[in-house]
Structure formats: C-alpha cells, structure tokens
C-alpha cells in the first residue's frame, strides 16, 4: 500500500558548530501509541543524541545538502556555527521535503532579522520555536510560504507598547531583500 499519510517529517534538528543540540524535535502523531510510531528507534534521548552525533559527523563540512542516512532522507544546511537538519522518511518525495526545509530555513531568515547564527537563535528562541511550529505540526507540513510563516510569528511583547508596530527601515529592507531573492529564484527556475 502506498503511503498516503500526511506525516512526512520525522524530525527537525538545529545543532551548533560542534554537533551539540540547540533545537531538536522528533515528531510523532500525538494520538498514536508510541510502539506504532514509525521511528520507534529514535524515542529515547540517548538514541536521539547518538543519532545526531553520527549525523553530524557524516555531514559536517560536506556541503552535500541531501543524503540518505540510516534509512531516512536528510536535508541539511550548514551556517557559520549552526546547522539545520530535516529528517524525513526515505520514500517521501524529496522535493516535498525540500519545500518544507526551505520554508523553515527562509522563515528563520525572516524572523531572525540579522541572519541565522547561534547567538541569534538563542536570543530569539521563542520566535524560532514558533516559526518551526508554524511550519511543521507534529510531522505534518503546515505551511510552505516563508512570509506567511514569519507573519504568523509574534514578537515578544515590550512592556510599554503592547502592540508593536515595526515599520522600521530594517524590516522593510529585509522584506525587500527577501522578495528580490525569491524573484531571482523563480526566474532561474523558469529558465
């Protein structure tokens, strides 16, 4: 039977430059019994960290973007001191996973105005967690448009003004920059 399940994603990981955890989430359906879960081998924290360190060793400084790792498809991107990983089932459509991965990556880019690095992620941890949550809901791809995701993530309240209207130059610039890169990508794809 062909897998029609919407549960496409097994895990999303953010590791730092030494392979230590920054954000890790292994997905499983909230109402399914644990033993029926498809990735039962990655349930305990120990197994997870072992998996992560093997994965990190395999991918660090390799710049391959996608690989088949221990019966899962892994898409990843390395930044200066963090790496993003998306782990999906091996028979999932690679390009669908790519969509989800790009959504996470680009929405983080938008949410973290000054780029993806470890300091930035730790400082805006709530926004990172929200952005990922708005992209993937327990393994189901919830949204793939980075701008939609970013606009669904609220900023932390400031004490003085509960509603924060930010029309600063920085915000506009980043939106413009993003629009430009998207346009370029579309054009490239068309060619």
């Amino acid at each position: 039977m062909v897998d029609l399940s919407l549960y496409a994603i097994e895990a999303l990981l953010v590791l730092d430059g030494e392979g230590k955890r920054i954000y890790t989430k292994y997905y499983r359906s909230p109402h399914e019994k644990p033993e029926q879960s498809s990735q039962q081998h990655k349930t305990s924290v120990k197994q997870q960290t072992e998996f992560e360190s093997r994965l990190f060793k395999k991918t660090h400084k390799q710049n391959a973007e996608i690989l088949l790792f221990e019966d899962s498809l892994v898409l990843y991107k390395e930044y200066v001191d963090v790496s993003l990983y998306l782990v999906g089932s091996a028979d999932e459509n690679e390009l669908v996973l790519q969509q989800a991965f790009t959504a996470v990556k680009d929405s983080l880019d938008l949410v973290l105005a000054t780029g993806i690095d470890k300091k930035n992620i730790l400082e805006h941890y709530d926004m990172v967690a929200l952005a990922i949550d708005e992209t993937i809901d327990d393994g189901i791809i919830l949204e793939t448009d980075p701008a939609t995701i970013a606009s669904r993530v609220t900023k932390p309240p400031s004490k003085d003004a509960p509603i924060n209207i930010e029309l600063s130059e920085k915000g506009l610039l980043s939106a413009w920059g993003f629009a430009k890169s998207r346009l370029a990508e579309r054009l490239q794809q068309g060619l």
Partner: protein
Amino acid sequence: MSTHTYKKFEEAESGVLPDKMTIYQDCLNAFNESPVNSKRCRLLISRLLQLLAQGETFPKTEATALFFAVSKLFQHPNDSLRQVVYLAIKELSAVSDDILMATSSIMKDVQNGSDMIKPNAIRSLTRVLDESTAFSAERLFKSGVVSKHPSISSAALVSSYHLLPVAESTVKRYSNETQEAVSDLKTFPYQDGLSEHYPNSTYISQYHALGLLFMLKHHDKIALMKLVQQFSSGNTLKNQLAQVQLVKLVGSLLAKDPQLVSQFGPLLLGWLSNKYESVQLEDAKLITSLPDRYVSPEIFASAVQTLQSLLAVPRVTTRFAAVRVLNKISMIAPEKIVICNPELESLINDSNRNVSTYAITALLKTGTSNNIASLIKTITNFIHEISDDFKIIIIDAVRTMALKFPEEWKHILNFLVNVLKQGEGGFQFKNSIVEALFDLVQFVPQSKEVALENLCDFIEDCEYNEILVRILHLLGKEGPSMKTPSLYVRHIYNRVVLENSIVRSAAVVALSKFALVKNDPTLVESIEILLRRISNDADDEVRDRATIALEFIESIKSNGESDPSPAEDLIQSKYTYDLASLESKLSQYMSAKQESFKKPFDASSISRYTEDERKAIDLKKKQEQMFSKVPTGKSKGKSTVSSDAEKRNGTYAGPGSDEMDQDLQSAKFAEELGSIDDFKSFGAIVNTSKDVPLTETEAEFVVTGVKHLFKNHVVLQFHITNTLTDVALDNVSVGCSPATSGDDCPLSEVATIAADRIKPSETFATYVAFEKSEEVVTEDLLNTLYFTTRELDPSTHEPFDGDEGFQDEYEIDSLPLTAGDYIKGSFVGNFSACFDELPNHEVSVYNIRENIPLQEVVDKVVVNTSCLTFDNTQFVSTDSNTHTLKLYGKSVLNGARVALVVRMIKSSKGIALKVEGRSDDPTLCSDVVNEII
C-alpha cells in the same frame, strides 16, 4: 535565586543550558503573579521551550504543575504571550496529567480569539482531547474547517487528522465540509501593514483537506476514483503538495488494481509535464515502479525522459531524487535508461557525493560490453579525488560488473591493478580491490594468470598482514596448477625472507602446496631445500609448519605414484566444510555436558563441498547480491511505494533465493530424519529438494512437501498445517501412489509415518518412504491427505469426549520425482568448451500455449533442473522476445556432468522452447531434457 544562576540566566549567548529547577521555580512564581508581566513570562516560556527542545524532561508531577501554571496565563489578553502559551501547552501535554482541565479555556479562544492565535488554539486543542472528549470539539473543528482564513482552516484540518486514530467517527461527521475545503482557494488576508512580510498564498489547506479526505475514504475505492476524477480535472488543485498527494493516491489505487493503468494513462502522462518538479518526480516514481506488463513502453519512456530532464536541474535535491529513481530502475531494467547515460556521466563529478555514487552505480549497471572500456576510463580519472568509503562502493560495482561481463576482464583487471598500485587508501579499500581480484581469479579463468602475477607484485610492498595472508593462500591454491609455478615460488619465498612471522607461516603453507606439482620434479626438490632452510626459522610456528610440510612431502614420495597418501589431502584439501553448519555443530558440542567430550567430535555429518561446488555456491550468492543490493534502504519503505518494484525483484531472485536458508534447512531435515528409526537403515541423505507447496496457501490444511533422496530409497516429507480454529486432525497421513501402477512401477512403498494429532495452527510432519533402484528413477506421485476431524471444546481446546470424529480425505497436488532431484548446481569455468566435450546428446522441443513472461519460464526451468545458470542468463532482458539459458550441474549419484542450453522464443501464439542437453550419463541426459517443464 542566587546571583550566580541569575547571571547564567541572562547570558543566553553563552549557550549554557538554563538550570532546570531554577526555570521551574521562576515559572511557577511568575505565572501566578498578578498582574502578569507578559514580557517576563514570554521570556521564561522561551527558556522552558529551550529546555524541552534539548531533551530535558520533567517528572510527571512537576510537568503537571507547570502545565497548570502555564494555563493560568490565559487570563492575560496579550496575543504574543498567548501564542507561546499554546506552544508550551502543546509540548507539556504529552508529559502531564489531567490535561483535560485546560480544554474549556482553549475552546473559548477557538471561538472568540483573534485570527492570530486561533490556529494555535485549535492545534493545542487536539492535544488535550482524548477518545471520550473529542466529540465535544466537533462544532469547533467544523467551523474552523470552513473558515476563510487559510491558517485557521489548515489548523483545523491538521488537528482533525491527528485525531483520526481516536475519533474517526467525529471527524467523519464533517467530511462534506472537508471535501469543500479541497476546492476552496483561501488567500491569506491582507494584514493592514501590521506585518513586515508579504505572504504568498500557497493554498496549502488543499493539501491538508485532501490528505484528511483520503484517510476518511480509504476503504471506498469508488469514492477515491471519484476524488481523482474531480480534482485532476481543470485547475482545482493549486497547491503542489496537494497535487503530489493526488499522484500518490493514484499510485495506491494502482497498487491494489493494476488494471486501472489504462484508465489513468492520460493522467499519468499529463503529470509528467506538470509545472511542478515535485509532481513530475512523484509521477515518474509511480510509473517506473508499476509492474511491467501494465505500463506501455511509451509512458515508461516518457517517464525516463522526465527524469532525464530533472538530472540537469541546478538544485541538488532534484538531481538527487531523479538519479535515485534511475538507480533503482537500473537494478531491474538497465536497458531502459540507457538514454540517460550522457547525463549520468556528467553527474559522476557532482559535488554531492551521494549523487555521484548513484550515477556511477547506475552507469555500471547499464554498461554494455561496448562502453565498459570508456566507463572505466572515466572512473579512473576521478577515483583518486574521492574518499575511501566512496571508492569502495565503486570497486564493488566494478566487481559485480566483472562477473557480468567476464569477456571484458582485461579492462577491469587493468583498472583494479592500477588503483591497487597507486598506494593511496586504507585497509578497507585495498581489501575490497583484492576481493575483486579474487573474484576474477575464481570466476574468470582467462584472467587468472595476469591477475595472479599482479597480486604477486602487490605483495612485494603491502603493509596489511591480513591481505598478505589471504593472497599467499590464494597463490598456494592456484599457483601449482599454473604454467610457471616457479614464478610464484620465488615471490612467496621472498615473503619468507622479508616479512614477520604471521606472514612467514602463511608463506610456508603456500610453498608446501607447490611440492605436489607432478610434472616438474626439480621444483619439488627446490621446495624441499627451501623448507629445510626455513625449519631453522626464529619463530616456532614457522618452524613447526615447515617441519610438518617436509614430513608430508616425504611420505608422499615414499608412497609413490600409484597410492595417493593421506598426506596429499592434508596439503591440498579437496573439500571444505559448510561453515555455517560446522559452526552450529561445534557450538552444540561445546555447550553439551562434560561427558560428551569423551566422544570425539563427529565431523562426518556436516556437508562438505568440493572446490567446484563451493565456487558454484559463491557465484550464485554473488549473482544474487548484485540484484538485491538496492541502496534505498528502509525495509518499510520497500513495502510501500516501491512494493511492485520489489515484487519484480523478488521474482528475479526467485530461482536461487534463500540459498543460505536452504542449506541450513536441509541440515535440519537431515537431523530430523536421522532421529526416526525406520529410516536409519537407509544410510545418508544424498540430496534434499526444496520445500514446495502442494495446496493453496489459503486452504484449510496447508501442505508442503520435501523429497529426500537416499541411495536406494526416497523419503517424502509432508508438512501439514492445520489452519482451522476449532477442529483437530487425528491420525493424519498422506497416501502416496505412483502414477504407474502394477509391476512396472519402479517404486515400492516401505513405510508410512502418520501424525497423531494436529491441533489448530500447529504444523506436523508425516513421512512416506519408498524403495527404489540405484539408478535415476523418475515418477509422478499422486497424493491424498487422510485424516479424522474432531471438533474441539472451545473452553479446554481438547476434543469432546464422546466425539468419534469422522474420517475424511483431501486431494492435494502431486509431488513428482524428477530428474532435477538428482542434480546439484555446479560451477565450470568455460561453459561452451565443457558443453562441447560431453559425450551424450539429447534435444527436445516444447510449446507453451499460455501467454506468460519469459522470465517466469526461465525461473521454472532453473527450479526444475536445479542447475546453476551461466553467463547471467537467468535474467531475461525485458524488451526481447528471445532468450538463451545456460545451465550446468552434476548428478548427485555418480557425479556425471550435465550441461543444458535452452533457447526460447516468445510469439503471439505462446512460447517455443528448444532444449539441448549434453551429459556423461545418457539416461540422466534424456530424463532431464524431457522433463524440463
């Protein structure tokens, strides 16, 4: 809070995890404060999330306390705080008790909250519900599904999807709304300049609605067909994930009923030129995984074309996906993707190593004898630039190619020798090259001389003892039979002079084997001299081996030509044991009690293989490996999307699969038979056939049969499984009557052993033994199952006391004793030469009227004759209508050789077969040829 922890808490960038208990205390305090400090609370929750996301867990009571503290924050109206509150609830709900308490607060938000937090509320709601409370949220979910806001709609759909395992009936009640949501295009509302981002509408709620709908209707084929019709037409589906999902749906329908391919044909073809690459890819995956006979070659070709175009896309993921599919096809039908070769070749140097690995292995599979040379040249150019583990993959692929195209050995050998001599690379890499050379030496006799010479060169400077020892062993085995044994002696003796004791002792053993060379007495003498010199070696092991070898040579000499001495066997062993069964026997012996050690270990019960037999087994295993080594991993995955491809793979491996298991199985049977007194007088088993089914697997009583050949007897072993749940079978026996009755019958029944009682879902064996003459006897045996059924008392699972039961019989398939049962597959270096030299000749012609694939016929012939196939002829190329099958085996009775060439042609009328057989034994020859199908 101490200043120390406080400081740590502020220094987020230090990367140190905030202290678990500090956060716990702070959370409880801050969340219960009044008024709530929203900024501080959000910061605390952020830290809490960080803890949870890094794998920290709280004990249940603390988690519950946190959960309640967090839910207190619902009184604060700030959306931005509320959003993280929902996230925290989502995370904590998995580890807390009494989460139902939060239901009403969340429900309130789902009804009245702002658009910003409504989706979050809905998604949290599904976490706190369970089987008993899910129904209460039906109305909320329903109104969420129909909402115009895409995020709310998606959230409701995804949440319903999560609920399916516990509350399918509730979700079913709004399936109409779900269906409407599929075609509803919801755009993201304009946000009044509140946001700095400009959302594009992806219409992803279509994907969620479609996914949910499939799950709700997955039992209803007609409804699913309708869905496909409805959503594939026009422009209903805008979202690409939704379109991919639709392709998958068609795939699942086709998996259940491949006949539908013709109906979906235009659709499949259309998707191949879809504007989304993901849809093209999914469609191509689907088409190429369908069973061959249902897919027209045109569609398949255009699917390959689509994949070909995807190979040239700049994005790595796309290339990776496409080359992965092509690689999979190359395992089954390499000729179909030959047109992609230029693209694949350009991918060999791809920056992504996975892509290049797939490309190379695919190329090596599609390689024909024409392009092997150029392919190898390409590989040679870049093999030095890549890492070891990748090199090993390539070497393995080259090695399988060497077996596939023995006539191309020159190029392959050159390549292997080159990479071997380059010096770079670790043990694993060198070892895999040496393995490949070993294969060449064993299975491609023409290459033997050159390969051995190169190995000799290699051991001159090899740093790995393990490899050295193996090569020395091989030289000792093969060297004496070569044209110039003295050459190898020199190389081996060099090792004795230069290497450490491990290598020296291996070299001594190898040297001693050259003493058996018959035609060169001077060589034997010089070896003796060498060995005598070695017996003064510094290492005792080396000395011992040399002394023993000298002793052996002495005893052989004194015995003279006519009387082969046992020492000869010790130097050059004629057979090896079946290692798997030897191991199990030995460990059995060791684990038994002390007294069993009084008796020496009995090795005679372990099957031995002569050199040729072992080669045959090796070759068979390797041929299978070539086709089973699909690098897609994931056994679960194979059973889903690629199930059909797998199935086809399965039939390909058919004739020889579970070879290992069979060896073990026959050893097990032999043990069982040995324990039955009636059969003890029959002697040792000569051959054991495969376990063949004699009934449908769905039958009430499932019977399989095995034939055991003894020198003068045949024993049929029947395994009977009772699949009924409330009936036991008593006095079960199988009546076996030979088809030719009366005095002509070559078989006479000597014993029958029945099973006393077979309870539900138990399996028992019954036996029938026949006496036969020593020659090859073939006979059809008609079988009937006799038994008494007795109904079982469901409470005790014992038959009712008064029940006499009634007798019954049951017709099962016949179990013919064929010529194939007397043959064991065997290996020969040069098939055609061997075929020509065999004396007895027999030809026979068959016509098969049914329209079945050639592969099926080939599989059947291979099984029936139990011979080993040669030159890769067990695989029929899928697009040709003719095939030539080469088979070789040896009689188990007298070792007579049998070689068969089966030519087949497929036409519209059926399949015509011409069997040409040659053998040492005329009766066996005619029997085999006349009973091939």
